[in-house]
């Protein structure tokens, strides 16, 4: 019986100490990890779609809470005024969610540019979305109210050959971004303006 108690006590104490240590480390590294994810996962896409911005769009960011989800918005300044906001949405592709960073021009409410952040699409087919600039260019300049559709669904977006599912996912993600932008337009613009100067 004493053996039993000792075993229980040892395991309990060991597990709780371990839990405590991990919680402490998790807490103290959380911010840094978030920063690293921004820099290495979303960062390259953000910098690419905000080419020519005079600020660092990764550090000039704000969040908007809708429901219980928080979305990060990145602000791009051109000639000193915050002109572009970008945020990430995703939609189901062939091999899991496809993450798309969509940048809107806050003055015209048109899409400025889109970029791919994460995907798990078939290498050589859907994965080409990463590099296929001509496909992505089709979204540039679309008004926030215009719903894009791929050509197979009767729309004007020409899907990447052999990768209709991925093309649809990108289109759906862009649509989600448009809807979100439209709904939160005033909040987004107010917050973006606070980066003036």
């Amino acid at each position, binding site marked *: 019986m004493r053996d039993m108690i*000792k075993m229980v006590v040892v*395991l309990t104490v060991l597990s709780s100490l371990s839990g405590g*240590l991990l919680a402490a*480390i998790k807490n103290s590294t959380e911010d840094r*990890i978030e920063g690293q*994810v921004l820099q*290495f996962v979303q960062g390259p896409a953000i910098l690419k779609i905000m080419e020519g911005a005079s600020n660092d769009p990764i550090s000039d960011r704000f969040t908007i809470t809708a429901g219980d989800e928080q979305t990060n918005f990145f602000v791009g300044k051109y000639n000193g005024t915050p002109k572009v906001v970008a945020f990430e949405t995703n939609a189901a592709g062939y091999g899991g969610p496809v993450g798309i960073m969509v940048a809107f021009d806050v003055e015209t409410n048109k899409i400025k540019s889109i970029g791919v952040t994460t995907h798990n699409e078939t290498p050589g087919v859907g994965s080409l979305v990463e590099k296929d600039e001509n496909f992505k260019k089709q979204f540039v300049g679309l008004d926030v109210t215009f719903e894009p559709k791929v050509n197979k669904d009767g729309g004007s977006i020409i899907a990447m050959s052999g990768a209709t599912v991925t093309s649809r996912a990108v289109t759906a993600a862009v649509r989600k971004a448009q809807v979100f932008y439209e709904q939160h337009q005033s909040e987004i613009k107010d917050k973006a303006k606070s980066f003036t100067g």
Partner: protein
Amino acid sequence: MAKTISQEFIKGLWTEIPPFRLVLGLCPALAVTKSVENGIGMGLATTFVLLCSNLLVSLLRNIIPPKIRIACFIIIIATFVTVVELMMQAYTYPLYQALGIFIPLIVVNCIVLGRAEAFAFKNPIFPSVADGLGIGVGFTLALGALGAVRELLGSGTLLGHAMFGPGFQPFAFMVEAPGAFVSLGLMLCFMNMLGKR
């Protein structure tokens, strides 16, 4: 039994070097050694876990009831692995992305559990630390060497620097999975030939 502390350290570098002499830990050795950097990163992460788990297991060897020792080892090892994982996420994110699932899999690396069970649980603190450090450094060197061979032949680079000039046609087979088996096999064979003399 009367080995000195330095002997405990040295044995990990030659007579018991994993994965060549102590043929354990083959899974990470095969999977992550596409480049020197990945190999050494994996080795250092494993060294840290080995060092800490050996230290703690040895410290607690009179407290832990033998019947539940494995459970205790796993808690200790898993804790340190999670610490490593969080730290890598926070400070070396690209390496974390490259090593991926193999960082959490250090928990089930036979080397770590093997040293806890076979050495640290039966020996005082200093020899256990020396043993952990020796095996860890040996593992790092081995993975680094394997990574060097594969990177040199498979991509024509060493630590990312081109080694052969533009005319070199990379032997892509070496950075694929079969190349890992072939190069590990050849290195094992080479080590055995050297050891026979």
